[in-house]
């Protein structure tokens, strides 16, 4: 299998100064795991930009084991354009380590490229959470994350998921099965089951 050949660590804390994309049912987990790794150690802040009409609430009690909620700011933008503008401004300012934008409409190449340039100018990482099939060509990488049923582990906190790299500008595609390690507060790769 190719998956095991490619080192997960060379991909996962995503490449800085670029904008990435993630989709799928576990996209939020991906975003929080990344934010935790980028912000918790050096006390930097992550900004979560989303449209104000969203009914889904991210639950700070739930994600506090991934990322301390004091390191997260929420921006409730009134429209899609404001989400993009706020994301660009925050990326460019360089005062936040990570900007997570929850996008509901496809974005054009121009907008995507602007986000890339802003991330480069501000030395920050951008991450767009988007519905499936709405990728943008300017993105550095695109990930598809989905939860997986964990048969073997009867523990209460089963967090097995499959993370697939479905677009990569500088490298090959790959897939990993990962789980959240509560002790180390890190994502760890689970070895694939042996085929008998």
């Amino acid at each position: 299998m190719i998956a095991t050949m490619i080192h997960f660590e060379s991909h996962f804390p995503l490449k800085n100064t670029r904008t990435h994309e993630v989709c799928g049912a576990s996209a939020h987990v991906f975003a929080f795991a990344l934010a935790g790794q980028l912000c918790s150690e050096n006390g930097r802040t992550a900004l979560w930009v989303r449209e104000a009409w969203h009914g889904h609430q991210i639950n700070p009690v739930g994600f506090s084991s991934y990322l301390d909620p004091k390191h997260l700011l929420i921006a409730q933008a009134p429209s899609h354009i404001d989400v993009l503008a706020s994301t660009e401004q925050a990326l460019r300012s360089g005062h936040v380590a990570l900007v997570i934008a929850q996008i509901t409409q496809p974005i054009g190449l121009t907008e995507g490229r602007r986000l890339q340039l802003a991330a480069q100018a501000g030395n920050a990482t951008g991450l767009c959470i988007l519905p499936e099939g709405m990728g943008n060509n300017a993105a550095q990488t695109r990930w598809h994350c989905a939860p997986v049923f964990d048969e073997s582990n009867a523990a209460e906190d089963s967090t097995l998921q499959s993370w697939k790299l479905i677009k990569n500008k500088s490298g090959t595609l790959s897939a990993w099965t990962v789980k959240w390690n509560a002790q180390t507060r890190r994502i760890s790769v689970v070895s694939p089951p042996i085929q008998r």
Partner: protein
Amino acid sequence: MRKRVVSVWFPRLSSDRVLRARAMETANANRPFAVIHHEKNTDRIYCLNQAAEVQGLYRGMGFSDARAYCPDLRSEPANTLADARFLHLLARWGKRYCPWVGLDGTDGLILNTTGSTHLFGGEAQMLDDMRHRFARAGLNGRIAAADTRGAAWALTHYASYPGADITSLPVAALRLDGKADTALQRLGLRRISDLLALPRATITRRFGPNVMLRLDQAMGAQDEMVTPIGETPHYAVRMTLPEPIGLSADVMAGTKRLLEQLCEKLKDQAMGARRLQLTLRRVDQGAHQVELRLAAPMRDAFRILPLFERGIAAVDAGFGIDQLRLEATQVERLSNAQITSATPVRLDGLEDLITRLGNRIGLENIQRYLPADSHIPERSFQIAPAAYSHATGSWSHLRPRPLRLFKPEPIAAIGSQPPAQFRWRRMSLTTGRATGPERIAPEWWLPDDNWRSGVRDYWKVDTTQGRRLWLFYTPQNPNWFVQGEFP
């Protein structure tokens, strides 16, 4: 230099204020008018104009009686707060005559004009100027000048003609309380001259020290100060240009000069601006306003200036801008702080970012989470505007909580055990493992419509399709709902 004090008394302050505001009706100013105060369950006349007094009405008269006497009486409810504000305005206006202007009760001003009368060509001319201006403004003001504050007060309130001798005035002109005044009257001491003729010791023994104190203050034996009202700092600066400007770089340069002045002012008062308003007046009399709300109180011109860029770029200069006015409409205390190597790094940059984003999407829409003490999942956190809160508190939970919460979405299932198969969001899901139940009871002390259905038994259901959902069952009202999703 001889001390001179001018006392101004507005006997009809309240009614004059109302009638002044009704400029259209001043033409028929000799129609009776009264200000009504609701007191002890009846409406009574609080203040009235000359025409009403001529009709036989008086202060403290019941309003219904007054209307019976005078059917065409116009009235207005009393507003003591507005009266006080009006008197403060008059005190501020009084600073044109001298720097020490104080309030005298609720309807008078006291001016210490020592050494400033010559600026108006003498005291008589100054008083004439005041009278003239009051008449033009439609105010009934009684004005008198004297050597002491007490004497000036006595002359305005009790003298029937200007320049009266103070000793010929009744004893009440000494600002005595009602009890002392009545007692003196009963003894036959009607005028101040009668009081002066008596030996001091007997008066003090009989009436306490207050009567003699007031007498001494009026006669000048005892000094009395005029306490000027302090001027509240005004955080606004403006600049008028000889030629109109239109380039945004020029406007920015003008704003920079104003900001430096304003920040200097803020620094003197140890204040920081929270909200700034820049008004750009165009040559065609139109005005544009650029509002800036800051995420933290600030008084550094170099930090505030770049935040104005976006607002100024959006302004249409038209034929040019010839006046700039900058005002800090909301200020907060911002004390000086010592910067040492031990002080924690301040997140100035982050505050600037919040300001910039806030000016686009609204400062309240940049939020942060604060912990709250509740078992109810929706109430276990608070959302607070980041600009007005600090990240505090610790987050803890005994049982796993979902990453995402949504409004309870009903699913079709029966029984108190989680269903083996169910449909949720048009997905057919099979339960692989269910953990629970965890019973959460509603908080009866806080009314919440969502929790009307009673206690909830929460289950974490791992589906074989992968999704890990947070389901709950309401035993008092049997139904199943999905409320959250775990990582």
